[in-house]
C-alpha cells in the first residue's frame, strides 16, 4: 500500500519544492553572485583551517611585518604571523558568531512577532512596547555594556549580538501575521477544532517563513558586522582569531603608521564581501519569495 | 456606420515556458451606438481582447497580428503618442474593481475633473462644472463631488467610474466586468444606467462579462469566447434562443432559470485548456459531448448560419457533412 508520509515521499516533495524555488532563484543575477561569494567563504571556513598552518605562536623577529611575498601571500603581522593564514582561520569564528547570533535573533523575533500578531490586544501591546524599547535603544552602546558586563567570551558575544538584533524582525513578522490570521484558511483551521498553538505552528509559521528566511539573511549581515565592531573595539575573545580581532590588533599595533596595508585591508575586504554576499541573497530572496516584487 | 472593425486580432503573452495564445483570430464589428457583449469564462481571453483594443496590454504581451480599425483608423500600428490621444477621448474603459481604480486619498470629483483637464484642456472652473453635470447624469447627488471614494457605496463608486469613462464623450466605452462585484439590485440599477446613457450620447459599448444575463439585458450582439477564440457570434436574441455552437448551448443550459424545471443542469465536464499548449483541432473538443474524430484534427471554419449569425464548429459545416457522406 502506498504510504504518503514515508521518507521517500517526503523527499520527493522536498525535491519538487526545491527545484521550483531554484528555477526562479537562478534567474536572479544578484542572488547568484551573493551565493557564489558566500559559498567561497563557507568553503574557506570549513576546509581552509586544515590547509594552512597558523600556530598563533611568535615567529622569528626577522619575520615581523613583512610585505606580501611568495612565502607569505598577504605578508606578516607584528608578531611575524602569516596574514593570509590569519584571514582563513578568522573566517571560521566570524561566520560562526554571525550565524549563531542570527539564529538566536530570528527565533526570538519570530516567537514574539507571531505571538503579538496572533493574540493581539493586550499581549500585542505589551510585546510591541517591549520590542520598541529594543528598537530605539542605541544598539552599539548596549552591546558594549553587555559585553563588558558578561566578559569577553565567544558565547557571550553570540548572546549579546543575538539579543539586540531581533526587534526589527519581530515587527515585520507581526505585521505579516496580522494579515495571515485574517485569511479564510486560518478560520477554517479554527472551524475544524484546532487550538491556537496548532494554528500558529501549522498555518501562520509556514506562511511567514519566507519572510523570516529572507530577513534572516539580512540580519546575518548585520550580525557579522556587529561581531567585527565588537572585536575591533576590544570586546571580542582575544584567544580566538576573527577578522574583527585582526583589525583590532592591526589598529592597536599601529599598522597604519607602519604603512602595513596588507595587514588591515584583507580582513576588512573579507567583512565587506561577506556582508555584501548576505545582502545580495537577502534582496534576491525577497524578490523570489515575494511574487509582487518579481519581475515579469 | 461601422464604428469598430476588428479582424483576425491575435495577442500573445510571453512567459518563460512559452507563448500563451490568449487571443487568436478574433474578428468583431460594432456599429455606431451599438452594444456588444463579449462573454466567456475565466481565462477565455476576453479581457485580453479589451486591453488589446485600447492597447493597454502588460509588458509581456503584444499584438501579434490582425487589425483594429476605429472609424477606419488603424490602431494596431498607431504609435503610443497617438494612442494617448485616442484613449479616453475616443475609447474609454470601465474597470472591474472600482475601489482599486479610484485613488483613495483624493476626492472622487477631483479625479474626474483631472481627466477633463488633461484631455479636454478645460479650465479648473469648467472642469468642475462638467464634473457636477456628469454626477447628475449618472444619478449621484452633485453635492457629493468633494467626497472620498470610501464615503461612497459600492454602487455609487461604480457610477463614478462610469462618469469618468464618459467624461470626454468617447465614441466607444469598454466595460470590463463592470457589475461583477455588485449586488443583484445594484447591478440592475447600473445596467439600466448604462442603457440610458447609451441612448442619450450614442456611444458604442463593449461589455465584457462572464454573466450571460448581463449580456441578455443590455447588448444587441454577443460574441461567445472560448479558449482565446470566438466560438459563436451574432444578434443576442438569436444566439440565446437558437445557439448553434455546442459550447454556447451547454453554457446556456447551465444557467439556472426560475421559469424552467427545478433541476440542476449538467455541468460541462473537464476544465478549459491551458493556452500555453492549446489542443489541436477545435479547442472545445475535449469537453464537447458531440465531438467527432475530425474535431480532434482540424480547426473548424467560421460558418455563417444566417444573416450575421456565425459559429465555428465542424458540426455546422455543410462541406464537412457532404465529405463524410
Amino acid at each position: 500500500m502506498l504510504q504518503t508520509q514515508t521518507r521517500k515521499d517526503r523527499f520527493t516533495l522536498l525535491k519538487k519544492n526545491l527545484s521550483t524555488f531554484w528555477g526562479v532563484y537562478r534567474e536572479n543575477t544578484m542572488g547568484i553572485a551573493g551565493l557564489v561569494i558566500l559559498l567561497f567563504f563557507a568553503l574557506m571556513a570549513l576546509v581552509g583551517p586544515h590547509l594552512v598552518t597558523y600556530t598563533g605562536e611568535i615567529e622569528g623577529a626577522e619575520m615581523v611585518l613583512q610585505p606580501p611575498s611568495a612565502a607569505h601571500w598577504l605578508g606578516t603581522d607584528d608578531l611575524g604571523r602569516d596574514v593570509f593564514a590569519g584571514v582563513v582561520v578568522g573566517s571560521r569564528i566570524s561566520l560562526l558568531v554571525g550565524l549563531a547570533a542570527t539564529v538566536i535573533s530570528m527565533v526570538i523575533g519570530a516567537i514574539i512577532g507571531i505571538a503579538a500578531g496572533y493574540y493581539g490586544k493586550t499581549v500585542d501591546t505589551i510585546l510591541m512596547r517591549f520590542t520598541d524599547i529594543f528598537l530605539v535603544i542605541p544598539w552599539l552602546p548596549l552591546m558594549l555594556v553587555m559585553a563588558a558586563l558578561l566578559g569577553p567570551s565567544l558565547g557571550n558575544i553570540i548572546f549579546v549580538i543575538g539579543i539586540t538584533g531581533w526587534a526589527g524582525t519581530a515587527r515585520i513578522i507581526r505585521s505579516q501575521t496580522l494579515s495571515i490570521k485574517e485569511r479564510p484558511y486560518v478560520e477554517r483551521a479554527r472551524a475544524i477544532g484546532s487550538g491556537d498553538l496548532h494554528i500558529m505552528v501549522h498555518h501562520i509559521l509556514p506562511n511567514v517563513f519566507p519572510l523570516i528566511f529572507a530577513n534572516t539573511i539580512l540580519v546575518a549581515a548585520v550580525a557579522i558586522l556587529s561581531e567585527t565592531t565588537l572585536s575591533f573595539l576590544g570586546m571580542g575573545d582575544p584567544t580566538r582569531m576573527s577578522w574583527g580581532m585582526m583589525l583590532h590588533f592591526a589598529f592597536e599595533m599601529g599598522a597604519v603608521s607602519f604603512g602595513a596595508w596588507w595587514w588591515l585591508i584583507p580582513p576588512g575586504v573579507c567583512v565587506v564581501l561577506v556582508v555584501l554576499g548576505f545582502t545580495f541573497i537577502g534582496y534576491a530572496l525577497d524578490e523570489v519569495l515575494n511574487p509582487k516584487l518579481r519581475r515579469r | 456606420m461601422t464604428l469598430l472593425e476588428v479582424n483576425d486580432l491575435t495577442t500573445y503573452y510571453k512567459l518563460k515556458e512559452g507563448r500563451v495564445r490568449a487571443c487568436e483570430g478574433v474578428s468583431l464589428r460594432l456599429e455606431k451606438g451599438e452594444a456588444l457583449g463579449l462573454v466567456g469564462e475565466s481565462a477565455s481571453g476576453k479581457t485580453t481582447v479589451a486591453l488589446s483594443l485600447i492597447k493597454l496590454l502588460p509588458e509581456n504581451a503584444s499584438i501579434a497580428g490582425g487589425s483594429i480599425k476605429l472609424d477606419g483608423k488603424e490602431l494596431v500600428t498607431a504609435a503610443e503618442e497617438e494612442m494617448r490621444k485616442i484613449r479616453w477621448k475616443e475609447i474609454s474603459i470601465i474597470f472591474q474593481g472600482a475601489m482599486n481604480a479610484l485613488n483613495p486619498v483624493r476626492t472622487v470629483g477631483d479625479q474626474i475633473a483631472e481627466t477633463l483637464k488633461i484631455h479636454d484642456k478645460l479650465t479648473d472652473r469648467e472642469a468642475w462644472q462638467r464634473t457636477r453635470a456628469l454626477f447628475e447624469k449618472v444619478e449621484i447627488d452633485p453635492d457629493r463631488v468633494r467626497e472620498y471614494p470610501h464615503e461612497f457605496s459600492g454602487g455609487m463608486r461604480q457610477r463614478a467610474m462610469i462618469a469618468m469613462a464618459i467624461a470626454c464623450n468617447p465614441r466607444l466605452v469598454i466595460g470590463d466586468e463592470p457589475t461583477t462585484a455588485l449586488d443583484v439590485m445594484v447591478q440592475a440599477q447600473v445596467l439600466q444606467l448604462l442603457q440610458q446613457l447609451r441612448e442619450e450620447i450614442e456611444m458604442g459599448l463593449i461589455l465584457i462579462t462572464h454573466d450571460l444575463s448581463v449580456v441578455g439585458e443590455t447588448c444587441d450582439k454577443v460574441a461567445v469566447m472560448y479558449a482565446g477564440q470566438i466560438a459563436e457570434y451574432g444578434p443576442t436574441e438569436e444566439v440565446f434562443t437558437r445557439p448553434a455552437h455546442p459550447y454556447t448551448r451547454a453554457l446556456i443550459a447551465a444557467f439556472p432559470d426560475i421559469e424552467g424545471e427545478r433541476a440542476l443542469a449538467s455541468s460541462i465536464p473537464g476544465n478549459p485548456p491551458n493556452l500555453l499548449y492549446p489542443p489541436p483541432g477545435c479547442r472545445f473538443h475535449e469537453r464537447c459531448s458531440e465531438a467527432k474524430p475530425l474535431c480532434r484534427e482540424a480547426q473548424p471554419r467560421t460558418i455563417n448560419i444566417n444573416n450575421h449569425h456565425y459559429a465555428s464548429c465542424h458540426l455546422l459545416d455543410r462541406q464537412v457533412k457532404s465529405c463524410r457522406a
Partner: protein
Amino acid sequence: MQSLVSVDQLEVHFAVRTGFMQSMFGKETPVVRAVDGVSFELGKGEILCLAGESGSGKTTTGKAILRLVEPTGGKVLYEGEDVRSYNRLRLRAFRQEAQIIFQDPYESLNPRQTVFSTVAEPLEVNNLCRSLAEKEERVAQALVDAGLHNPRELFLRYPHELSGGQRQRLAIAGALVLDPKFIVADEPVSMLDLSIRAGILKLMVDLRDKKGIGYLFITHDLSLAWLVSDRIAIMYLGKIVELGSADKVIKEPLHPYTRALVSVIPTPRRKVITQQSLLKGETPDPVNVPAGCRFHPRCPEAKPRCREAVPLYREVRPGHFAACHLLDS
C-alpha cells in the same frame, strides 16, 4: 422533521471603533447590528438557504452558529443543546460535527499545505486516527466522496496546481473527512465559472441524500437557492423578512423586498430590468438602522405605519413566514 439546529433570536452586534476624542467626550459608541434577532430551524438532512444582499448579515449568522463569531444574544441549539454554553472541550467535539465551506477556494486553502495534509489536518487535530494507513484510507475516501477520483495521485499536489473546481472539491473533502452532520456553505460556488457550478452543487445535494448532512446554504443568488434548497430565508439588514419553501418564496413571494429581488433574477433569455422592478438606492449601513420596518425607506408600497412600528414576523400561511405590515390586514 427532527430539528438539527434551532436558532432563536440570534444577535451579533459589533462595537465600531471610534476615535479617542469621541470616547473622551462620552459619545455613545455606535454599534453595527450585523445580525439582529434571527430565528429559524434546520431539520436533519435539510437544505435551508439564507439569501440576501451583501451587508444583510447572512454570513455572520452562519459563522455565529459555529461560534466562529461570538453571538451577543439569543440562543443556538444544536441537537437540543445550547452551543453558546459549550466549554472548550464540548466546542471541539461540536466542531467535528459542524463544518464550514468558504466562498473562495483560492483563499480558504493554505497555499503551503499539500492536498493530503489539508484533508488530514482535521483528523490530526482531533486525534482520530490510530495508524497512518487508516489516516490515508480516510483521506482518500473523503477525496473520492468529494468527487476527486484518483485521490492518491493528488496527495502531494499543492492547491495552486489544481483548477478552481478541484480546489472547492478539496475544501469540501476537508469538511467531509470528519463525517459532519451539519455544514454551513458560505457562497460555495460564487467564485466558480458557470460551467462547473452545477457539478459542485450536485455533489452537495448528493451528500445530503447519502449521508443526511444538513446544510445552511448562504448565497446572494436566488435562482441557485431555488434550485438546491428545501426552504429559503430572505435576510435584509440583519433580520429575516421572509421564510418558506423554496417554491413558495420564489413563485409566490409575500414580502415586497422578496418580490423586488425575484423580479430582477438574472436570466439570459429575456430582459427583466424595468423601471418598476428596480428598488431605489442601496442597502443602508447596519449602523443606522431605520426605525419601524427596516425596509420602509426603499419599499415601493410603504405606508405611514411602516415608519413607526416594527412589523411582526409571523406565519402568514402554513409554513410560510414573513414580517410586513401590509400582510396584517
